[in-house]
């Protein structure tokens, strides 16, 4: 792992430890837990989009598979939550494998539409198969997770658990990136033909990373199910898949850290907006939560038009120029002293 990634990990872990004390309120800790779920799914998606250069507008489906596997296996068959989560991940990987082989032969727009169609089918099935999924009524009474005999029943405990999962997921992602597979994926992103000519089995690599990213999404779905204890098809619609792509794109496609930054920022955005709405009201502007979607689309559009590398790359570039400025100011002073 590169030095700056280790610094990144240290900053992330420090933030994770500090945040609960900074916000102090169970509601905001809940928001941060949801941010962790999105983060985990986005890390997987970033491996697919940022490194292999393949788009998927269908990852909401894998989240749904994880959530439903966890919900149904624990409530209907009485499996332990951990086994159910593993089973969900394997199911998601199997489905990703079957769908991925024909789908990843397609490129660009075709791949985007094919994955969107897949996500839409899964959502329709989740609503329509009432005898299995419970249909719109959903699955109730999903048990909580426990770890080493320690029940994760408070928000704070679940918060630390969810973010630990994110850190582990991030660590595994970095291992993949800095392996032969990771370098192969980057070559595919650069030019698929050139990568193939250099001896990389491009088709197999693309399917592999698709399967891995599906596993991330599935685990994120399972963690979601164990946290809210109730699932219905609502949150797993096509819009959620689009939202995940948005998070990865806003943060930055070219780095996993971008996915983390994008997922956290966009997960917190509704809270930030409702917070500023109070101030807007003071100066006479009525802000309604309905406008959130406009702000969301606007942010995505502006970033894609003016900062296509994403916020993370923008932050790095901004930080560098500030640092250069600081250096110049300091040096300037030295010249004056001399």
């Amino acid at each position, binding site marked *: 792992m590169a030095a700056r990634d280790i610094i990144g990990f240290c900053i992330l872990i420090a933030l994770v430890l500090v945040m609960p004390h900074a916000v102090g309120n169970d509601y905001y800790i809940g928001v941060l837990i949801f941010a962790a779920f999105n983060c985990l799914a986005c890390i997987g998606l970033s491996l697919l*989009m940022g490194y292999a*250069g393949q*788009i998927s507008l269908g990852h909401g489906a894998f989240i749904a598979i994880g959530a439903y596997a966890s919900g149904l296996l624990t409530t209907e068959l009485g499996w332990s939550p951990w086994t159910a989560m593993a089973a969900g991940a394997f199911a998601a990987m199997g489905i990703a494998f079957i769908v991925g082989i*024909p*789908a990843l*032969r*397609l*490129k*660009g*727009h*075709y791949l*985007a*539409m*094919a994955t*969107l*169609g*897949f996500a*839409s*089918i899964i959502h*329709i*099935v989740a*609503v*329509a198969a*009432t005898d299995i999924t419970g249909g719109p009524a959903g699955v109730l009474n999903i048990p909580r997770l426990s770890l080493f005999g320690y029940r994760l029943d408070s928000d704070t405990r679940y918060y630390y658990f969810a973010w630990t999962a994110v850190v582990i997921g991030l660590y595994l992602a970095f291992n993949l990136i800095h392996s032969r597979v990771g370098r192969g994926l980057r070559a595919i992103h650069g030019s698929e033909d050139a990568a193939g000519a250099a001896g990389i089995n491009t088709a197999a690599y693309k399917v592999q990373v698709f399967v891995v990213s599906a596993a991330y999404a599935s685990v994120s779905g399972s963690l979601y199910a164990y946290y809210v204890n109730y699932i219905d098809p609502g949150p797993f619609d*096509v*819009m959620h898949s*689009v939202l995940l*792509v*948005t998070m990865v*794109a806003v943060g930055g*496609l070219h780095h996993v850290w971008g996915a983390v930054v994008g997922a956290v920022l966009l997960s917190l955005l509704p809270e930030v907006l409702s917070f500023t709405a109070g101030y807007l009201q003071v100066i006479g502007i009525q802000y*309604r939560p*309905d*406008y959130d*979607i*406009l702000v*969301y*689309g*606007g942010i*995505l*559009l502006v970033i*894609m*038009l003016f900062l*296509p590398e994403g916020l993370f790359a923008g932050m790095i570039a901004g930080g560098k120029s500030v640092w250069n400025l600081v250096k110049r100011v300091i040096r300037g002073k030295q010249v004056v002293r001399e």
Partner: protein
Amino acid sequence: MEIGLTTDMLQFLFMGIQRGAIYAMVAMGFNMIYNATGIINFAQGEFVVLGGLMMVSMTMALNLSLVFAFMVSVAFVTVVGILMERLTINPVRRPTVLRLIIITIAVSILLKGAAMCFWGKGSHYMRHFTDAPPLEIMGAYILPQTLWIIGMLALVVIGYVAFFNYTMTGKCMRACAINRDAARLAGINDRRMVMLSFALSAAIGAIAGIIITPIIQMDYARGALLGLKGFGAAVVGGLGNSMGAVVAGLLLGIIEAGSGGYISSHYMDAIALVIMLGVLFVRPGGLFGSSEMVRLKEF
């Protein structure tokens, strides 16, 4: 029993044509932009929604005459299409496919959000174009609105063929679709053709939205599924081939209505998507394209 079966089938056929005509028009909209730019416009479904909702406001709230309201609604969505191209597609230099996809997704989120803020979350009722009672044909009923839809589809197809075969602008657009560099060398302003393709595509989407609204009662969130199924029709017909899209759209609509009637109405929405995935995976060039042409394209 025999009579009952044919009556049922006829009824599903009418329903299928009514749905299919909309998919066909959405697919034509996809094709127009695809031919000019190679982009799949993810906001295509939103054009349909905007057209329908605008028409609701014009006729139900402002009480304008049908013809005038129709023209205002189409013009409004056309302007939206032009603005989309000028503000978000035109300024991007040397774009990657991923970036273009996300840009059109962003526009679709914005349009959907705007529609939700203006028209609210409920679905909107609009009266049918004519008040006549349903016609009975061999025991099956056909709504006058369905006849309007069939008529509009026929008009759009005739207009499309006439425009691309008999007008200079249409021929220029075709030239751009075949080879943009060569068209530019021949003195065609290709950027203007791209703008025009967005305008026409938005207009066709708006027409589809306007004629279907009395039947489905439009709401802001319908764009995604309409767009996806329209794309399915475009794929089945061979992307870029608009006459193929019309046939494929009608076919998808009829299969969907039939499977809704005979198999399960719950899974009806998934049928068109499953067919779309099947064609994408097995024969991405569409059912009607020659395999020779398909080999030249990249998927």
